[in-house]
């Protein structure tokens, strides 16, 4: 048996705050109508601050994170998926949206406490179109809910480092039209003050995430991917809330403290892994298995690194947490110019959207390799996600590129939203083979 270095472990303090915020987020959406508030629903991270500008009592639900959260409750998720399939919705459609449409069909919405409440019907569908079906998901959801008006913003333009003025103009045109549309549909006015407040929060949260994330470059890593999954969705759930940037700053500080004191996420850390895409949510114990049995820690992905987050990404893929505008910079502008600045910031920092959804995998491979280098990773385990064409796009090419760069790569099949597409025993067998072939013996027998 190889000798094992042992680092001290400690539970994350910020953890409970994240849990509370998540509960607040879902509950406030479900209860929005009790206080006369409005429900906006769509793809997560569809320029939240613009939606928030229609009132403090506007609550925004991202269907992907809702569905990921529903996927944790695999029995509940299964009911949703079966409801969809008996309705003629194909098994292989978006693993998330099947949980979402299914919820509408069975009239059940699940809260983090496992409590089930009647489906909270949306008042407005406001979404972005980033894959080739996104805006269509809500078209159908709206129809199932008995006719919810929909507005979709086409994001299929250059995003990230290739973004041009033309692209910003295109999105801005649509946003301006959208604002008029919401005003007409809801009778509410777009509030510039509220927008300034929300957008500054949003950008601050996105940027703070980058600062926190960087601490994982340390050996041993202070936080593992599975825990990152509990935090990073706030980047797209409610980044415009002040609580979110506060949470991320607190996390950042805690991680810094852990690094200073040499605290590890996994005491036995000896192999550092890059992963990719949304995981098999109901089967996160796979990560625990790798940690316990092999001391292999998963600690980074283009998914948690980039989704809705704020980085300045250099041409060579290096990352620096993005600079954010000051209040003055925003306040002095007129509405259109301010929106333009906000959109430009969001579009240029959202490298993940661009590399994932235009399928530009040469760029994505470069980003992955950069993370491997900066985060000092030893290998990659990639999820071939049957539930999402978007995030699975190009991954086999990425895989080839990573292998070419000399790293070992394992792929496994699954479906982020639907456990029926996942074979636990088979995956464990693959993982065992993978590590054995790397000469990494088990730390504990059996497992």
């Amino acid at each position, binding site marked *: 048996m190889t000798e094992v270095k042992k680092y001290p472990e400690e539970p994350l303090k910020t953890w409970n705050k994240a849990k509370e915020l998540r509960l607040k987020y879902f509950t406030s959406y479900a209860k929005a109508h009790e206080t006369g508030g409005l429900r906006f629903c769509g793809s997560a991270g569809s320029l939240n601050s613009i939606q928030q500008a229609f009132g403090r009592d506007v609550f925004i639900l991202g269907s992907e994170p809702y569905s990921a959260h529903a996927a944790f409750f695999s029995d509940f998720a299964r009911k949703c998926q079966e409801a969809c399939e008996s309705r003629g919705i194909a098994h292989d459609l978006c693993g998330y949206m099947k949980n979402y449409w299914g919820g509408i069909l069975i009239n059940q919405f699940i809260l983090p406490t496992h409590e089930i409440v009647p489906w909270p019907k949306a008042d407005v569908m406001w979404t972005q179109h980033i894959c080739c079906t996104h805006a269509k998901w809500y*078209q159908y959801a709206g129809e199932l809910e008995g006719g919810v008006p929909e507005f979709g913003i086409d994001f299929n333009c250059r995003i990230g480092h290739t973004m041009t003025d033309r692209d910003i*103009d295109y999105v801005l045109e649509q946003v301006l039209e959208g604002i008029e549309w919401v005003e007409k549909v809801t009778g509410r006015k777009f509030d510039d003050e509220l927008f300034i407040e929300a957008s500054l929060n949003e950008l601050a949260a996105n940027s703070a995430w980058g600062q926190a994330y960087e601490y994982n470059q340390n050996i041993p890593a202070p936080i593992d991917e599975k825990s990152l999954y509990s935090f990073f969705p706030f980047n797209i759930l409610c980044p415009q809330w002040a609580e979110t940037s506060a949470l991320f700053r607190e996390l950042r500080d805690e991680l810094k403290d852990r690094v200073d004191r040499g605290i590890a996420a996994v005491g036995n850390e000896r192999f550092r892994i890059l992963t990719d895409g949304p995981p098999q949510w109901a089967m996160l114990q796979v990560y625990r298995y790798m940690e316990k049995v092999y001391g292999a820690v998963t600690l980074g992905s283009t998914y948690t690194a980039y989704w809705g987050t704020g980085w300045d990404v250099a041409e060579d893929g290096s990352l620096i947490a993005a600079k954010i505008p000051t209040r003055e910079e925003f306040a002095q502008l007129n509405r259109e110019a301010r929106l333009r600045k906000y959109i430009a910031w969001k579009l240029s920092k959202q490298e993940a959207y661009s590399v994932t959804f235009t399928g530009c995998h040469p760029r994505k491979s470069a980003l992955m390799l950069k993370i491997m280098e900066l985060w000092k990773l030893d290998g990659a385990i990639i999820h071939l996600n049957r539930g999402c064409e978007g995030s699975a*796009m190009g991954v086999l090419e990425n895989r080839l590129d990573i292998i070419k760069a000399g790293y070992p790569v394992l792929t496994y099949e699954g479906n982020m939203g639907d456990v029926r597409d996942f074979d636990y025993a088979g995956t464990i067998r693959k993982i065992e083979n993978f590590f054995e072939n790397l000469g990494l013996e088990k730390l504990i027998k059996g497992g």
Partner: protein
Amino acid sequence: MSSFKNWSDNRHDYAREWKKKTGGKVLGYFCTYLPEEILYAADVLPVRIFGQHGSDIGISSAHIYDMYCPFSRSCLAEGLKGKYDYLDGVAIAQSCMHIRQAFWSWQKHLPVEYSYYIYMPHGVQSKGRYEYYRGELVEFKESLEKWLGRTISDADLDKGIDIVRKNKESMRKIWEFRKNDRPSITGLEAMEIVFSSQVTDKREHNEALEQLITELPDRKVDRETGTRLMIIGSEDDDREFTKMVEEGLSLPATFVIEDHCVGSRYFWNDFTPGEDRLASIARWYLDRPPCPSKDWPKRLRFSHIKNLIQEYKVEAAILMQQKFCDPHELDIPALKTYLDELDIPYYLIEFDVLVPAGQLKTRVEAFLETRVELV
């Protein structure tokens, strides 16, 4: 008529011959949203990249995950097998992710002189779309000019527009004959016409179309029309299936119209000329009967389908959906409801090269049986 079939059968030979004969360049494209006019203006021959149904697509499995539609995997497989070694360039106008993946893998593993990605908007109902797409076309034109080392003038663009426009207009004329009680061309022939149009020099194709238009009024059709069928579907160039339905069943049937891109969707709408050529081209593509991935927030495709059903006196529809084709899959539940309301019976086929033909045969036959009196 036989030239369409020959072109369809021997598309690679045709392109190679064309190159030899003209010394020109050939560009492969991945989706019919690509503005062919600009390529004709630049004297480049655009050919659409197709797969080969029934042939092994395993070779693409290292590059495209098998949850992507068989069409996209098959396109890449043909490339990797070397069938397209004559291409000088490849391009795509952004449509669904599946075919995009094929494009990117192609770009990586089958390098050619020139490759280009056009950000064709998905929001074909969004404000600002015309301006945005026009801008894309300007950049596309510039990049072609750089590749070819020549400028593309307005006169060149007019030439390109003319060639493509004529082609599409002729096909619309021919489609009129499918409205007849005894359609003068079969679904198989129609498919071959559109297919060949996408893989040959349209100038030559135009001559054949014109010839056909003169022949059609007197064409004798000695087959029973049977059930008037429509195909609504994902990409579909499966001639074998079309032939099996029209010729191989114990009940007669004829495809009289279709809504997909190897059919009427390719040429349906009119071109409106304007001073700004690229703006007119942009408009042409954006206003086309939409592919499902671009059909939101309002559904425009369904009413188009309804018109086709009425004009072509469609009696039943076959929903030919490529397996894993998300954009279409998602339209299907709503489409079924819509067809129910129109009282048009339909049958859904999840199309995959791996489904044995015999099984499809039983299904289509059973479907036809549901709507005729068997005794």
